[in-house]
């Protein structure tokens, strides 16, 4: 009898031996299997860019694009700050304050129509 034939004949006995595992052990093994299946997470690719749930074994395989995406929010923030720093200063709040508390602009007094409107308007109050 050669190696393979012998093993083929021994195999059903080994299968029967596995089937004969005690009820308590079998129940615990089934429970462990279910627990493992609960942990089973198929990896999901969001928009084809970010991979979620590939497990710790895959962390080293992150693509350059995925690593780049991690830095994207910081790059956007820095770009916004730089753009603001370089743009000419137009403070709308300060202008509003000047209009509310300051005198009317000189152009308003030079405008005759405005002066007339002011007199007629003050007569109506």
């Amino acid at each position, binding site marked *: 009898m050669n190696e393979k034939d012998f093993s083929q004949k021994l*195999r059903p006995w080994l299968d029967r031996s596995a089937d004969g*595992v005690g*009820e308590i052990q079998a129940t615990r093994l089934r429970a*462990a299997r279910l627990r*493992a299946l609960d942990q089973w997470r198929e*990896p999901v690719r969001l928009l084809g860019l970010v991979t979620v749930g590939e497990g710790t*074994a895959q962390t080293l395989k992150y693509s350059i694009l995925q690593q780049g995406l991690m830095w994207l929010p910081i790059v956007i923030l820095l770009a916004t700050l730089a753009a603001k720093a370089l743009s000419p200063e137009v403070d709308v709040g300060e202008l509003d304050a000047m209009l509310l508390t300051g005198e009317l602009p000189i152009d308003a007094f030079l405008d005759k129509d405005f002066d007339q409107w002011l007199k007629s308007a003050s007569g109506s109050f």
Partner: protein
Amino acid sequence: MERRAFKQCVFSVQDEQAALDIVQDAMLKLAENYAARPAQELPLLFQRILQNGIRDHFRRGKVRSAWTTLWSSLGLTGEDDEADPLETFEVEDESSLPASPADRLEQSQVMAIIEEAVQSLPERQRQAFLLRYWEDFDVSETAKAMGCSEGSVKTHCSRAVHALAKILRSRGVTL
């Protein structure tokens, strides 16, 4: 699948509780770390995790036995008086048993001899034999699972088969 893995562990570690722990850990590790792998790679990965678990068990055992020796020499042995007898009580599944009591007895005796023979094999031979002929791995897969060369797998398998045949013949078992 888990029953075969459990029996493999029992053959190796000869302790059902430890075998249960090793199989549970292996299943969890497979689920947590390798869910992304293709399905055909999973049996091999599972076997590698399982074999590592068995190796770790033996490593821990060496450390534990060193400490146990130390404690026992100091007279500080801990005894487990609260073992639940129900934990060791097993109910036999009668559906797979032979019809007559005589056949049943004979089968259980042959089974015991075979299990004993497999258990008596050297670790690497048993590992190679079970992976190759029980788990149906080819030589290359077995080599990967065991972390050795294909030549070693062939040698281990051949020696295991010859040793088993010799033991069974000497015990009067014909397959």
